[in-house]
């Protein structure tokens, strides 16, 4: 089964541990991830260090995004009014199916069978390319990395550099199988980029329709802002007569000043550049310059679910810089595919279950060491470890299997009273006897075997402190044992 097939199969829970184990066995992948993430980390660190007021800027950005999310409906209404006044047409899509159907409808209205796309997470999220293919429309990815991934029949493994899991040799092989068939292409990145330039230029020049996402939407002017380096985005947004932007509702900010603030943080946090090569501010339709028809699709697709969680909603501040991925000890080793979502890494671990349900993604909040490196680099101050803990609690409440709940229920009951706790210790001492090897319990019998796979347990002490205390001082003194010696306060608290 290809990665793509595996990752779009919805309906059964995603098994992060199994996927991570598989990824860790791929030495090429680990080498590619290690090299790439180390390089981006260093670039980001240098670019952020250049801002003397980074802490102040990110506090401003945090407040700005929270304010916009707190009055989202009002800000969205303002955006829609301004965009409409500027000549754009604004549409609302509640879910992926609605958004895809809408874009396919626009293509059909204009008789378009091939369109060009700028790199966009929102359109990846809704699997727009596959939906368009079903409708007989060929969506050509024009960002080099997205093109590589598309030609390979794969999916992105990083928010910003989707083909980060491939080496130059692997990319050469993909091109030789597809757009450079029968040609003797080397693995020189310059030559590979030139192959894509020639392949895509033809498609840009004849394209009847362009599709983009949006990095930021500005309410006061109805502007959609997109950032890129290659120039493919400018091709997509200026050459075709019809343009569609699919933008998550959480991307809207009130003013152009707010955009200016985010532009100071985003490229530095993302690629470590002071500014991306091209930042386009698309406002409605301009006669004689760019598309004649501009549609903006405001995408919900689970965002309002996330907004309803008072702790988890801060994940919607995310501006998709991917700084948290590059510093994460888990992501940098397992890569993006193990997360089973277009949003991998720390931000993906908190965003994915909130957007698309805990049922399928309950294991993601556990895919972290809680080291906190992600929160340290986040340019909009998302407390990712805090949200991870919150979602872990939710996962246990909502998703823990009955036996696990029973075990923890029994543990809570036993820990609830000193008498029961002492009895449990005595029982444990007897039960563990056949399992102790060299002073440690190394394997537990089923159904607890999985738990001891990665951990050794210390056996229960031969004599606990409380037992020693009553032996030395007699049981009548037990009540005067110092606090903190194992006496829980409040006997029957749950």
């Amino acid at each position, binding site marked *: 089964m290809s990665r793509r097939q595996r990752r779009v199969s919805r309906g059964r829970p995603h098994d992060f541990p199994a996927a991570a184990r598989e990824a860790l066995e791929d030495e090429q992948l680990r080498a590619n991830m290690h090299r790439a993430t180390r390089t981006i980390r260093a670039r980001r660190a240098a670019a952020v260090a250049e801002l003397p007021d980074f802490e102040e800027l990110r506090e401003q950005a945090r407040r700005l995004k929270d304010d916009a999310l707190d009055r989202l409906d009002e800000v969205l209404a303002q955006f829609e009014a301004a965009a409409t006044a500027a000549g754009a047409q604004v549409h609302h899509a509640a879910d992926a199916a609605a958004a895809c159907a809408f874009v396919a409808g626009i293509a059909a209205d204009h008789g378009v069978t091939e369109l060009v796309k700028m790199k966009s997470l929102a359109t990846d999220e809704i699997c727009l390319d596959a939906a368009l293919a079903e409708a007989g429309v060929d969506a050509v990815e024009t*960002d080099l990395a997205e093109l590589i991934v598309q030609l390979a029949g794969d999916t992105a493994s990083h928010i910003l550099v*989707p083909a980060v899991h491939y080496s130059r040799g692997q990319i050469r092989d993909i091109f030789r199988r597809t757009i450079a068939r029968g040609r003797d292409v080397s693995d020189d990145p310059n030559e590979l980029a030139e192959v894509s330039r020639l392949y895509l230029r033809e498609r840009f*020049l004849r394209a009847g329709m362009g599709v983009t996402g949006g990095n930021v939407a500005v309410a006061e002017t109805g502007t959609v802002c997109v950032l890129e380096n*290659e120039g493919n985005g400018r091709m997509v947004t200026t050459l075709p007569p019809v343009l569609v932007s699919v933008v998550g509702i959480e991307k809207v900010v009130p003013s152009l000043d707010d955009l200016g603030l985010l532009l100071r943080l985003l490229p530095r946090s993302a690629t470590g550049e002071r500014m991306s090569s091209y*930042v386009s*501010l698309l406002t409605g339709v301009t006669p004689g*310059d760019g598309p004649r028809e501009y549609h903006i699709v405001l995408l919900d697709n689970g965002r309002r679910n996330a907004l309803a969680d008072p702790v988890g909603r801060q994940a919607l501040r995310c501006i998709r810089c991917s700084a948290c991925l590059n510093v994460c000890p888990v992501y940098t080793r397992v890569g993006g595919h193990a997360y089973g979502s277009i949003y991998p890494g720390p931000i993906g671990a908190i965003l994915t279950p909130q957007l698309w349900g805990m049922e399928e993604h309950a294991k993601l909040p556990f895919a972290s060491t809680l080291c906190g490196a992600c929160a340290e680099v986040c340019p909009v101050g998302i407390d990712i470890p805090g949200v991870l803990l919150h979602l872990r609690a939710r996962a246990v409440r909502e998703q823990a299997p009955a036996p696990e709940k029973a075990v923890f229920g029994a543990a809570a009951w036993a820990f609830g009273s000193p008498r029961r706790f002492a009895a449990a210790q005595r029982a444990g001492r007897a039960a563990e006897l056949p399992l102790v090897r060299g002073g440690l319990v190394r394997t537990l019998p089923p159904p607890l075997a999985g738990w001891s796979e990665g951990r050794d347990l210390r056996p229960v002490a031969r004599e606990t402190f409380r037992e020693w205390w009553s032996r030395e001082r007699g049981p009548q003194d037990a009540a005067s044992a110092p606090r903190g010696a194992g006496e829980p306060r409040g006997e029957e608290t749950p």
Partner: protein
Amino acid sequence: MSAGVPESRPADRAVLDLFAERLTAAHIEVRRVAGGGVAAEVSRVCAEHGVRRLGVPPGLPACWRPGGADVIVDVVEDHELSPAELDTLDAALTGCSLAVAETGSLVLAAGSADGRRALSLVPDVYLCVVREDQIEPDLAAAMAPIATLIKENGRPVVFVSGPSATSDIELHRVEGVHGPRRLIVLLVPA
């Protein structure tokens, strides 16, 4: 930077130097040109890069266009050229609406000298003339004039802060993917 007292920008050497430094760091070639020397410098750049067909916006000042008997460049005005016609140009020459020193950005906003967005995108060599008084120190200062351009004139805006580039293959930088491979800024006094 602050509103109120109008600054004498041409005297602000620090901003000017920062702008030039940031452009250079972003692989943009900067050439400082005396006021009357733009046309000659454009001719020189065209000769250096083998430019035969140079696209310009119809509103480009006449004194910036290469001219004279010894000039072999064919100057093509962009009267809504089709994408295929734009693709036959070797280079484009435009002005800009403003520039930002902090980020080393040229801001194109469809002004009469800025041209259409496609003109400064499709040809492989792009020359942009920036007047010293157009340079804002940072993004915070630049957003006010940009807001005016968008709100009052409905202009599309593009920040250009480097040549077209990709780092998608092992993070190895390659210049000239889809937009101009070479970006040359001619910096002229106000």
